[in-house]
């Protein structure tokens, strides 16, 4: 398997941010966005290819988790609160 390139990391970041912003619930949405941003920023300096590979795999799993939770959240949507967009 080829080592994760810079562009793959960038696309994963973009896809995760897009998916996180689809959460219906304000709390989950803001937490997911903040967590994705912080995690990618914290691991910015990692150079070892194996560590990068491992982090990318973890990111893919987190992306799948976010997608599942977004679907569940959309199925059982609660009443809109004041902070949600109209």
């Amino acid at each position: 398997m080829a080592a994760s390139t810079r562009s793959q990391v960038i696309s994963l970041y973009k896809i995760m941010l897009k998916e996180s912003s689809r959460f219906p619930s304000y709390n989950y949405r803001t937490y997911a966005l903040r967590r994705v941003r912080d995690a990618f920023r914290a691991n910015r300096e990692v150079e070892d290819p194996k560590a990068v590979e491992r982090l990318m795999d973890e990111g893919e799993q987190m992306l799948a988790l976010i997608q599942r939770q977004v679907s569940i959240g959309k199925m059982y949507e609660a009443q809109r609160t004041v902070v949600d967009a109209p």
Partner: protein
Amino acid sequence: MIKNIQMFSYNMAARVLQQCVRSLGRPSLRLCPVNLALRAAVAPAVTVHRPFSFAADSRRTRWLGQSRISSVGLLCRQYGDLPPLTLETIKDRVLYVLKLYDKINPEKLQVTSHFMKDLGLDSLDQVEIIMAMEDEFGFEIPDAEAEKLMTPEEIVQYIADKKDVYE
């Protein structure tokens, strides 16, 4: 992201409606020629996508033409659409979105300031900026082209290319 697009189209729709209401206050004679020109321009596009409705429209216009109603306003067809993009409005919107981003200092922001060299952002911030532009203008920017956009000027040029805005 879908909600942002809905918010954006809601805002734009509200602005268009306001413009329509204001323009209806003026004499309708001025409004009509513009809409006839619009109708002529849009009619070919309408035929391509929906031939049935164009046939219905031509039948309707023929009926209206024969009956000659005194009020000129009824002969005009109004189409709902966003206000046309110009280079100036694109530039204003791009700079507005960039000023809202908290990692950018609004005083230092120029049209030609490079994100990485002048403003000290990194590639992750650039991704977030491009996503904000996608939300603002309502169309997807592929990753391959997104990573090349490094100044507000380039973003304006790219959007003008994609939206066929001529200078």
